[in-house]
């Protein structure tokens, strides 16, 4: 009985769970956008919810033998069991308004959506497939940044992925970057900021440094709304803020404009 209802963390209203789910995981009372899983994201965006997962044949390892309170290999195992995913991103092919696209959707539930070798490789493969088959690329980011447990290998994924999406420029192929809550650190400082069009969901946390690190550095409280989508739009870092219910039509319209395809 109790688990049919949930409390919205934003407006504190008690809401019938089904109502949130039917509303694309957006609070019907306050419009708060709950985090979506990568799979839900693909279902929501692609035509008829039809997606074909690609690049499913690569799997993470523990290249450094990293161990804090928990071994990295154990963290990978736990995340895999929790999310049923191999790592923090899914690549899929499908169509959006009939336009063939590759979508990379990041999964925050897998180690905070962090980018290690697998995320870097899959984003790169997505861009390379788009290049090879002359498609369009959409990346939905949701990440705390580079994955510390893979050390400098993770750091270098910033360059690897940025180089890969850079190739789409010369080829004249569209890349739309969708930033969702949260997108920070190494993901923001690489492909997520490199879209031909950068958009974000409302009230997402987007930035380079985490708010806590900034607070500790400047020894001041941060202003309200700092590093929110609205803040980024105001400072010229985004093309627009798009509510989840409008995301699909927005992407279709943007792709048609970039591909010069009037109705």
């Amino acid at each position, binding site marked *: 009985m109790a688990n049919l209802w949930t409390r919205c963390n934003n407006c504190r209203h008690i809401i019938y769970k089904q109502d949130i789910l039917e509303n694309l995981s957006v609070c019907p009372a306050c419009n708060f956008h709950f985090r979506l899983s990568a799979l839900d994201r693909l279902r929501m965006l692609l035509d008829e919810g039809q997606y074909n997962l690609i690049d499913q044949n690569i799997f*993470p*390892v523990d290249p450094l033998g990293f161990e804090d309170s928990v071994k990295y290999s154990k963290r990978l195992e736990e995340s895999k069991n929790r999310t049923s995913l191999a790592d923090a991103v899914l690549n899929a092919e499908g169509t959006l308004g009939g336009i063939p696209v590759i979508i990379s959707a990041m999964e925050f539930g897998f180690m905070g959506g962090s980018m290690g*070798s697998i995320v870097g490789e899959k984003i790169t493969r997505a861009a390379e497939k788009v290049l090879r088959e002359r498609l369009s690329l959409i990346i939905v980011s949701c990440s705390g940044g*580079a994955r510390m447990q893979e050390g*400098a290998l993770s750091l270098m994924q910033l360059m690897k992925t940025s180089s890969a999406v850079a*190739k789409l420029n010369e080829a004249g192929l569209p890349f739309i970057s969708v930033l969702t809550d949260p997108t920070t650190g190494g993901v*923001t*400082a690489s492909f997520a*900021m490199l879209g031909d069009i950068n958009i974000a969901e409302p009230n997402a946390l987007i930035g380079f440094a985490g708010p806590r690190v900034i607070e500790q550095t400047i020894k001041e409280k941060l202003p309200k709304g700092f590093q929110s989508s609205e803040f980024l739009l105001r400072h010229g870092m985004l093309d627009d803020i798009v509510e989840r219910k409008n995301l699909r039509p927005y992407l279709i319209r943007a792709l048609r404009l970039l591909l010069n395809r009037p109705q």
Partner: protein
Amino acid sequence: MKEEKDFYKLEKKIVLFKEEIEKIQSSEEKDKKTKITRLQREIEREWAEISPSLTPLNIVQMARHPQRPYTLDYIDYLSEDFMELHGDRRAADDPAIVAGFGFYRGRTAAFIGHQKGRTTRKRIERNFGQANPEGYRKALRVMKLAEKFHFPVITLIDTPGAYPGIQAEERGQAEAIACNLKEISQLKVPVVNVVIGEGGSGGALAIGVGDAILMLEYSFYSVISPEGCAAILWKDQRAVAKAAENLKIRAQDLMDLGIIDKIIPEPPGGAHIDSQQTFKNVDKELNLTLKRLERKTPEERLEERYRRFREIGVFIEK
């Protein structure tokens, strides 16, 4: 922080020998040469004992050593007629990054590097080598100038990281770094990176990638500072040494991971004990690397640069 001082304790004798050498050098004594040679032997002997057991944290301490040569010291040694250029043509000039042109072995080259200050006042002025977006945009502007005139780009890496501040975020710290990565991947001229001290995360990467990455023996390059990593994963500042070990941040680690191209040896005691020898070692490798890169066509370089990063990463493919 207590651990931070470990290396200062280790190097105590070496520092004394070095001070003695300096005293003799500026004196009128006879036999200067024999005396100095003897002291240098002492330094070598002492270092042979210390160096094999240096911990990753010791190496971090060396990379941050306040006497270590900084970017402008290298530029001063390597180039003639260095002309510093200022400003990003958008908002400001960032003193945490220096950029400009100078002659390097008979040709113009762009020199770009993070700059730290030597005195308290200068350290603050240089923001401890932590750049704002304007710094990265200035760096990119000078790289594009180098491309226009077909000059190679030499970058020197020495930063704790990009500055985490309110204005930095407002003006697009992440965008500035991302944009540099994208542009460097397409830059038609040779780009050589030399990590001379701290290679701190995205802030280092923004000018720290190219055709070849060279690292001084006791520099480090890391996805996050050991302090930051200890705070997040161990939730304990005392875990800094463990974090430094786990992160595999030493030049040799990065060489083993296939990330860097060359380790440049440091003189006994480290770069700060004999900076002239350090400059010579850097000069030698830089020269060889540039010669190798300049023999290739821009197309070959771009293809190899892409492949170079394309192949970084460890995973299983089934």
